[in-house]
């Protein structure tokens, strides 16, 4: 942090000013002139919060994707299918048992097992052949998409939100002041907050696991140089299987999350594959903090875009990706 300030004083100043302006926009009561110019504060606050919570969902999908890529150099283009499959499992479990929490656990285990199967049956056979693996994952994603269309049809599925999560809660953020002087607090959907907190918890847990445990150390070593790691006697294949299972399981959990606050249908697989590709390209392939930063940036860009420049909202995300590729092709937080 201090090193960054020393090396780039101008950039650091710009960042500090931007953060200060943002904080002021969030916490201050907007003067009428500002409301007239950019619209109501409620809309702005909602867009910010929506962007961050949507970023939470993108992070869940993209972290698995980036983890698998980081260790195995395997661009798993079937990652979107794992997401959708997890969502469908979650839907089936939650309608069958009525338990929302259980649907997460089963989706995680189910999709992780599928990941293990994929790694052992398919990817182990073509290790080190990046292009071939990528092609195979494209093929698999098409096969999975058709299989799921066959079983679940083209219908829209929604994982039932548990009754204690339905509806909005007031947040301690003032959106406006009534003429009587009484402040109006922001109302925000509880389910999105819970999901966001959960993804932060998962993110921190992953960071701790990678940086503070033995397994994490092995994985990090594998990211740096897997040949040397294998030569030291670590059973690298086992590590690959574990990481693939974790990455796939995270996609499964994300599927349930997506099914809860959006919906599941054919085509969602490619949408989330694309989203996680953009997220990891912006954040840096293989970097977990990068995935988190990329997810929040893309989430915010989508939501602020849909409110303030609806016509060009779709372009904004890709514009960000183009900018990152042009200025910092390795991604914002990549190490090399």
């Amino acid at each position, binding site marked *: 942090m201090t090193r960054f300030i020393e090396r780039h004083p101008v950039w650091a100043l710009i960042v500090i000013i931007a953060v200060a302006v943002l904080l002021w926009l969030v916490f201050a009561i907007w003067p009428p002139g500002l409301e007239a110019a950019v619209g109501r504060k409620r809309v702005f606050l909602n867009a910010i919060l929506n962007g961050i919570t949507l970023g939470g969902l993108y992070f869940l999908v993209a972290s698995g994707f980036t983890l698998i890529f980081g260790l195995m150099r395997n661009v798993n283009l079937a990652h979107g299918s794992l997401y959708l499959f997890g969502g469908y499992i979650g839907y089936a479990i939650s309608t069958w048992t009525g338990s929302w929490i259980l649907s997460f656990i089963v989706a995680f285990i189910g999709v992780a097992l599928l990941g293990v199967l994929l790694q052992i049956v398919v990817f182990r056979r073509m290790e080190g052949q990046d292009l071939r693996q990528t092609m195979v994952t494209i093929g698999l994603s098409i096969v999975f998409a058709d299989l799921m269309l066959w079983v679940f049809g083209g219908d*829209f599925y929604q994982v039932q939100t548990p009754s204690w999560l339905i509806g909005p809660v007031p947040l301690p953020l003032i959106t406006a002041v009534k003429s009587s002087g009484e402040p109006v607090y922001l109302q925000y959907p509880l389910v999105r907050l819970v999901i966001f907190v959960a993804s932060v918890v998962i993110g921190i847990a992953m960071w701790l696991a990678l940086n503070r445990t033995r397994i994490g150390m092995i994985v990090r070593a594998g990211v740096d140089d897997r040949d040397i790691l294998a030569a030291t006697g670590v059973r690298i294949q086992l590590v690959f299987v574990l990481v693939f299972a974790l990455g796939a399981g995270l996609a499964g959990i994300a599927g349930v999350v997506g099914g809860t606050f959006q*919906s599941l249908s054919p085509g969602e697989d490619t949408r989330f594959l694309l989203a996680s590709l953009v997220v990891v390209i912006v954040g840096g392939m293989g970097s977990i903090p990068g995935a988190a930063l990329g997810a929040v940036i893309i989430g915010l860009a989508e939501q602020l875009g849909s409110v303030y420049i609806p016509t060009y909202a779709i372009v904004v995300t890709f514009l960000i990706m183009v900018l990152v590729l042009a200025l910092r092709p390795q991604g914002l937080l990549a190490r090399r």
Partner: protein
Amino acid sequence: MLKGSVGLIALGSLLLSGTAFAQEKIKVGVTATLEGTYTVLGEDGIRGFQTALNVLGKKVGDKELEFVIASTDATPDSAVRAVRKLIEQDKVQILLSPLSGDEGIAVKNFAKTHPELTFVNAASGAQETTYVDPSPNFFRYNMDGAQWQVGLGKYAYETKGYRKIATVGEDYSFIYTQVFGLVLEFCGAGGQVTNRQWVPLGTKDFASVIAALPDDVDAIYLGLGGADAVNFLNQYQQAGGKAHLMGGSIMIDQTILSSKGNAKNALIGTIAASGQADTWEDPGWQKFVKDYQDSFPPNKRFPSPSLLATNYYGSTMALILGLRQVNGDLSNNQAKLKDALAKIEIDAPNGKIKLDSNRQAIGTNFVTEVVDDGKGALFSKVVKVIPNVNQTLGYDPAVFAKIGLPSRTVPECKKY
């Protein structure tokens, strides 16, 4: 070498026998949105099409109809690609296409490059398709989006007492046409449309759009369809939204009313208008509902056909009846068939349909209200039936032309 020439001869004779065989058949290409946001709509459209084949049969005189189905994703280029493939690769002679608004405009323009073929619109409802520079070989037996909104504006203003409304719609031609029809009538009656929000087709996260909805309106009009509509309702419920709702023709439709989950319950009591009403008592409609239900097992269909099923049924019916009138004669660039199609009047399930000089349907429209049948299934209940709705919505054609083409901001909210 010898082997090669034997192979060629074999191939040649196969092709010859193929053409000899093809004379007995009439090939029809069908497209539907079997991918993307409108998947569910496309699937039910195909169900309507199959119901029509079950009821009417595939025979035309001594010829048999053969169908090739291609998938699109509601974008104009996917529709043109599918239609081109059907014509060039599958050699179809007649097209039953497409489903969605933007696709319709593109396919109509494409139809001009194949004046020898016949195009029957399957379900698309953008106004421009038949109103601006129509193609002489493109026939549309369903009404457009504006015709499908006739009656809603007056009902909202006079009976429901709504004075100010805001609209949210998908950003493409069909929804422009729907909002066009609504705004003309609602503002004509004296109402105000304060805000029109447009979202890209395929939007998943509506939370910010919902937050930006104005508070000071009597009702919010939703012009969404397919996955977009379900996502909107889900997030609207989570945000605790409680405004009165009004719905477009693919919003208040079985594709949404029978989606899984309870978000759709936000729609109970919503008023809408469409080319059909689920509970209409007309015997022709009831027979169609029964035919539809008998054609598919209950878990492979909706409780009642959607607007798309009805449109595909009507278009298929018009095509088959037209072909039968000319006994399957496709000679002279299908001139006889085109003549017959332009003049034919069909007894569609949703009322009598005839074509105007632009080959655009004049038909019956329905104002509806969503009700719960007591067992958790939602249906649109008929409130008002309006026969003989034409494309200029009863306006003098000269006045209508001055309003302009449907877009994000047209028409203005005033009395024309």
